[in-house]
């Protein structure tokens, strides 16, 4: 009985799969698409490098390039570091090397490129 249940589960997983951006926060892009983001650690600390995972499974376009940046709009400066973005799979990207060097309000931007078109997501985060 247990073995049959296990077999059933194993055959179902490839069909059902894991939710495309499970555990990610959903953001709307300028063109009304949706992407998922996940920060690691979830609450970045000032001066400590962190990562943003980006999932594009809900977008119509075939995103093949992503750029990530952050600025402090009240202070008129960005980060001292340039993140790099690696494509982990067709719809999963990893932005590394983000460091917020000052506490306060940060505005993040993600530029999504597909063929000759691009889309944009922005959001703000207060960092203590």
């Amino acid at each position, binding site marked *: 009985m247990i073995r049959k249940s296990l077999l059933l589960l194993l055959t179902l997983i490839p069909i059902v799969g894991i939710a495309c951006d499970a555990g990610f926060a959903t953001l709307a892009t300028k063109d009304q698409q949706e992407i998922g983001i996940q920060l690691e650690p979830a609450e970045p600390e000032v001066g400590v*490098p962190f990562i943003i995972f980006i999932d594009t499974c809900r977008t119509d376009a075939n995103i093949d390039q992503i750029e990530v940046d952050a600025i402090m709009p009240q202070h008129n400066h960005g980060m001292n570091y340039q993140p790099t973005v690696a494509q982990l799979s067709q719809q999963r990207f990893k932005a590394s090397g983000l460091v917020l*060097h000052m506490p306060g309000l940060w505005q993040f931007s993600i530029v999504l490129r597909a063929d000759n078109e691009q889309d944009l997501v922005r959001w703000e985060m207060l960092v*203590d």
Partner: protein
Amino acid sequence: MGNARRLRWALLLLCVFPGLNNAVEWSASEKALITSLGPWPAPWFGDPTNRFSEDQTAVSLGQSLFFDRRLSKNEALACADCHRPDTYFSDGISLNRGFAPLERHTPSLLNTRLQNWFGWSGEHDSLWSQSIRPIISPAEMAADIRLIREKLAADDDFTKALQPLIEGPATALDDDEWLVTIGKLLAAYQETLVSGRTRFDAFRDALAGGATSSDELSNQEQQGLKIFLNEGRCILCHGSANLSFGEFGDIGVSFFTATGVDKGRYGGIQALQKSPYNRLSRFNDDRQGTSATRTEHVTLLHRNWGEFRVPSLRNVGNTAPYMHNGSLLTLDDVIDFYSELDEERLHFDGEKILRPLNLSNEQKAALKAMLLVF
């Protein structure tokens, strides 16, 4: 004692000590900011890039090297001749000289283990690589590594103590490996230079533990702390337990030197990226982790011109003079500098958080009182 008499005494005390009835109140957000300035000592788990970090033999060897004049040309200078233990591992003067006049003020070595960048322009990304620079700098200790190598290799006590720390005989190390070994031993010692707890730390701990205030700081010092957190905006750069987030800023201090221009962080990043001893080099002992993330991603920006490393404010009252060029001789000068800030001297694309504070004499005194406690 009757009630009337008690009341007369209470009124008399309030007249003589008016502050008794004026306890400083702290908002929830201010308490959160104060809490973020600790705990002290700050947690620290060793430097993964330096295999000698926290090794007691290495610390002992590093301490002996720190005072060893064999690390310089003609055995003229040791690290300790500028980073003097009796002046908080600084030198108490604006600009010192080695074999030539120097253009940057000698920073204190206390608490350097908490830094991410080293040198006033962050040209080094580890304490050990920073420790190499003055040894080979022609203006500072001007040493020839081949001569140092000969002397240390012939020192039986030194090589006997060193041998268990390295793989293979010391004689097999090349010049770069000798320099890096010396740098790592020096760094292992400098990591032990940690300043003690202050009344501010006790005050911080009280508030972090839920107290509404604490008499560890006087009313005047607490007023100074409020300026530090609020209108002074000092905490935006001088945050964290080390009272600096360790990055860089342009506050309008001149970058002209006696011989030309100091490019500051701009030159620092250029030097870092060319350095054979940075965290991306073979000398980084961390093969598993992410210790090179900052070095990999630091980017050269126009605004880096005129930026210098934000120093820690711990022991600031004991480490005059101030700024990368030692141009401000006293804390009063520093406070006046920020109070009367010349915005014309700031770069156009510079830090918008800076503006003249226009502090009253009372506010200046309060801010100074607080700085002296840090």
